[in-house]
């Protein structure tokens, strides 16, 4: 997120310094799947993801091989008739907004993804979606920003942000016209009052099995999982990587701050994946890990000036869509800084909005 914002600032002619305590593309960026996806949880979420996926399409031709851009599409899998109705609704919603999708019946789903269990109702293929290797993209965006003159302060720890100023652990300060807090789940520590909470997730990566999965597969029940705020949840979510490896997710837990693997949640997650794709059981997993999504109560990010501060901005709270929406967020952020008109309405994401919990 910070890397995308830094490049957009630099490309817009602003002088930029990036402060990174750890490594570029670490944290949630390194832990996530790198899925580039249009989502329609709400109209505002659709607009930001759709806008951003378009920006990814513009960026993709210039991404080097190590960014592993894969235009694999997303295939939303419907288990039964009720979810098939959701496929139709989703198709119509996307079509009305200019996003191409294909409805798959039971038979064509089997042909598209032969390793799914037989008897599933169908699915919706969104061919414009894809995936990237996010840490490599982050490095690339920072390098491009540096070529435009941006500075990188690596290994420095920011302990406080104020209006137009950052204070480091050693007491030194850095003054700027605008300071942007793009620190994911750490954002409320630096800017108290931001309604961002960590939402823990698990992922597992397998050995290389080229062709085992063709598109990023997500159960439509995922929406229930992602919506459930109160309890731990798992959903079938498998992504093919350029290397032939498979990333298997997903889990969501609130109230967890320990980054250790929760064996019970990991088992539930894998059992869910094997339920949809029985052949996964025979494949070899290499590594499992966890990460923390920066979640807001209304499932929309916080972008723009922090209330009561004109020169302290935030770009966080993107939950599981940080990579997808990083490019659109960067545009909106710089539009706000420079008082430029935005390509999409800015208000739904404004950090100054009143964020309430929708149960």
């Amino acid at each position, binding site marked *: 997120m910070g890397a995308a914002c830094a490049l957009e600032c630099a490309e817009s002619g602003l002088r930029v310094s990036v402060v990174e305590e750890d490594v570029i593309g670490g944290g949630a960026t390194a832990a996530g799947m790198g899925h580039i996806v249009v989502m329609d949880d709400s109209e505002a979420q659709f607009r930001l993801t759709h806008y951003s996926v378009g920006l990814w399409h513009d960026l993709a031709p210039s991404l080097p091989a190590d960014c592993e851009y894969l235009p694999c599409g997303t295939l939303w899998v419907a288990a039964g008739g009720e979810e098939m109705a959701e496929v139709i609704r989703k198709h119509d919603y996307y079509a009305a907004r200019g996003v191409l999708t294909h409805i798959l019946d039971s038979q064509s789903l089997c042909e598209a993804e032969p390793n799914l269990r037989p008897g599933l109702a169908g699915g919706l293929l969104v061919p414009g979606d894809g995936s990237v290797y996010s840490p490599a993209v982050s490095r690339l965006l920072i390098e491009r920003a540096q070529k435009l003159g941006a500075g990188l302060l690596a290994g420095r720890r920011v302990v406080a942000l104020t209006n137009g100023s950052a204070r480091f652990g050693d007491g030194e300060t850095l003054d700027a016209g605008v300071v942007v807090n793009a620190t994911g789940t750490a954002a409320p520590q630096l800017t108290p009052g931001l309604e961002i909470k960590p939402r823990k997730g698990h992922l597992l990566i397998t*050995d*290389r*099995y080229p062709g085992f999965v063709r598109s990023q597969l997500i159960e439509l029940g995922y929406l229930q999982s992602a919506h459930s705020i109160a309890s731990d949840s798992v959903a079938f979510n498998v992504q093919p990587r350029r*290397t032939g490896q498979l990333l298997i997710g997903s889990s969501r837990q609130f109230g967890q701050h320990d980054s250790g693997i929760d064996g019970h949640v990991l088992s539930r997650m894998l059992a869910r994946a094997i339920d949809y794709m029985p052949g996964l059981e*025979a494949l*070899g997993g290499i590594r499992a890990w966890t990460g923390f999504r920066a979640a807001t109560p209304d499932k929309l990010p916080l972008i723009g000036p922090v209330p009561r501060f004109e020169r302290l901005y935030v770009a966080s709270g993107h939950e599981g869509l940080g990579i997808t929406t990083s490019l659109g967020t960067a545009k909106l952020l710089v539009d706000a800084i420079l008082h430029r008109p935005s390509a999409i309405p800015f208000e739904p994401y404004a950090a100054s909005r009143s964020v309430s919990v929708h149960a």
Partner: protein
Amino acid sequence: MPEHSDAFPRQVRIYINGREVFVSSESTVAAAILTAGECVFRRSVSGEPRGPLCGMGVCMECRVRIDGAPHQKSCQILCRPDMEVITG
């Protein structure tokens, strides 16, 4: 009384890259592959040749395809009759 009256382990026939090879049934697949004169067990992501290193199921370098299943640790699996092993 031992199961086999002869003192020698049984010979089994396996196929390595389609080639018929006779090895002891107590032989690991890795040993059988080396005996057959193959040394490239698999290729890394960048195409480099790889072969057994640790011999105890930890390093993952000796993986081969066995009876259609990819990424099998050849140093941990004993030869079975008519097993089909693909390397490289």
